């Protein structure tokens, strides 16, 4: 097996992206369970990590394309993929630092679009497909999940209004363990696939694997472990925003939100209309706030998330373009990008230590009176 330096760098970077994908998205599955106390923070991320790993092995469908047709894959090479991955990682780290949930798929698409555009021209980017597969689902998914969760939450309270409140809370708490696990499983089958697809296609492009090959076991294992390790470390900042920032969540709401998110994700993947887990989960949590009488949704926080979603693709595209262009210069360029990416990662970690959010304080909002500051 003869792997060039660039191919090795791309594989390592893909696993790093997978890792950020894991800790960025733990919140989607576990935020409401942690907020309601259905699962302790440590248990929650542990359960989610296991289900993500299981999910990586469970799905038989393999990502056959890196970009879902958003860019012309005949025109992309290892340097472009590397640039795209770096763009996605940088954006994931930045939004994590701000405690904002944002779609890891959008970040990856954005990075690839930017890197491809600069290296192969705007013709290589299929803008029609971008609208169809990225913009429309991004607008539709929070609305769909929100309406579904509103109906489910309303029903959950309506049907149990005569029940003893403590007993009811206990019942839904138990239900939440199951519903949260299902979200994690659905996430693992979706997101670990992306990284497997990237690595496999890179190996095919390098001639190591024959065209059309399925991912080798080592690639499946590596991707599954990277995403579940990321999940296990817990993106506590984003968990806090989703679990505590949007609305006060009780167990019936958490259960309804998670059940709605799972149903929406599964419905979308079986119909072939891919929706982002992040957008669905966030929409469902907002819906669970709308569906309960007299509960307050902090629309300011929701608005900040919407802005982050809007910027995800273009911002990752700009970083991806710069990184892809530099990496195309050869080994020196690749090394410069790799060093810069590691420096940004270390910088983000150090900045996060100033206001650490951990398993211990994830359920404490620093100050509810000032939601506009990015302190979460």
């Amino acid at each position: 097996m003869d792997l060039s330096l660039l191919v090795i760098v791309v594989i390592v970077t893909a696993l790093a992206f997978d890792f950020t994908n894991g800790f960025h998205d733990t919140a989607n599955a576990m935020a409401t369970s942690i907020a309601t106390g259905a699962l302790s923070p440590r248990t929650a991320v542990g359960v989610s990590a296991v289900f993500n790993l299981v999910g990586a092995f469970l799905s038989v469908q393999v990502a056959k394309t890196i970009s879902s047709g958003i860019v012309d894959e005949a025109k992309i090479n290892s340097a472009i993929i590397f640039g795209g991955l770096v763009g996605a990682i940088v954006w994931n780290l930045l939004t994590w630092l701000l405690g904002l949930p944002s779609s890891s798929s959008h970040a990856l698409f954005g990075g690839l679009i930017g890197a491809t555009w600069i290296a192969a021209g705007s013709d290589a980017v299929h803008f029609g497909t971008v609208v169809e597969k990225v913009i429309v689902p991004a607008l539709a998914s929070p609305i769909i999940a929100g309406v579904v969760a509103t109906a489910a939450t309303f029903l959950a309270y309506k049907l149990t209004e005569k029940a003893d409140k403590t007993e009811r809370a206990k019942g839904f708490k138990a239900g939440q363990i199951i519903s949260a696990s299902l979200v994690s499983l659905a996430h693992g089958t979706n997101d670990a696939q992306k990284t497997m697809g990237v690595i496999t296609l890179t190996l095919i492009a390098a001639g190591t694997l024959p065209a059309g090959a399925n991912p080798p076991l080592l690639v499946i294992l590596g991707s599954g472990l990277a995403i579940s390790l990321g999940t296990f470390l817990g993106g506590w900042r984003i968990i806090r925003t989703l679990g505590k920032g949007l609305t006060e969540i009780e167990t019936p709401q958490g259960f309804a939100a998670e059940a709605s998110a799972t149903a929406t994700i599964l419905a979308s993947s079986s119909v072939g209309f891919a929706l982002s887990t992040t957008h669905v989960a966030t929409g469902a949590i907002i819906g669970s706030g709308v569906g309960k009488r007299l509960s307050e949704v902090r629309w300011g926080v929701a608005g900040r998330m919407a802005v982050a979603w809007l910027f995800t693709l273009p911002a990752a595209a700009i970083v991806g373009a710069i990184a892809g262009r530099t990496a195309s210069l050869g080994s020196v360029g690749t090394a410069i990008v790799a060093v810069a990416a590691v420096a940004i990662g270390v910088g983000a970690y150090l900045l996060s230590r100033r206001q650490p959010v951990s398993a211990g304080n994830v359920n404490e909002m620093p100050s509810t009176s000032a939601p506009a500051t990015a302190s979460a």
Partner: protein
Amino acid sequence: MTINWGGLGEVFIVAIVASVLFVGLFSVGIGAWTRRGEAVLNNALAIGCFVLCAVIVGYGIFAIAHK
């Protein structure tokens, strides 16, 4: 560029029917469970609801594995 409005509508309908059914059944189950001492029927109703929920979860896992 074509926008798959039909697919979008289908996702919405499947998602809302499945969620309302699942959450509805579970809620009826919880409601009955909290009154399980009052009548044997409540007990049976609760268990029936939870079993149906388990079937839906099982189908969900099957759908995840086979998509």
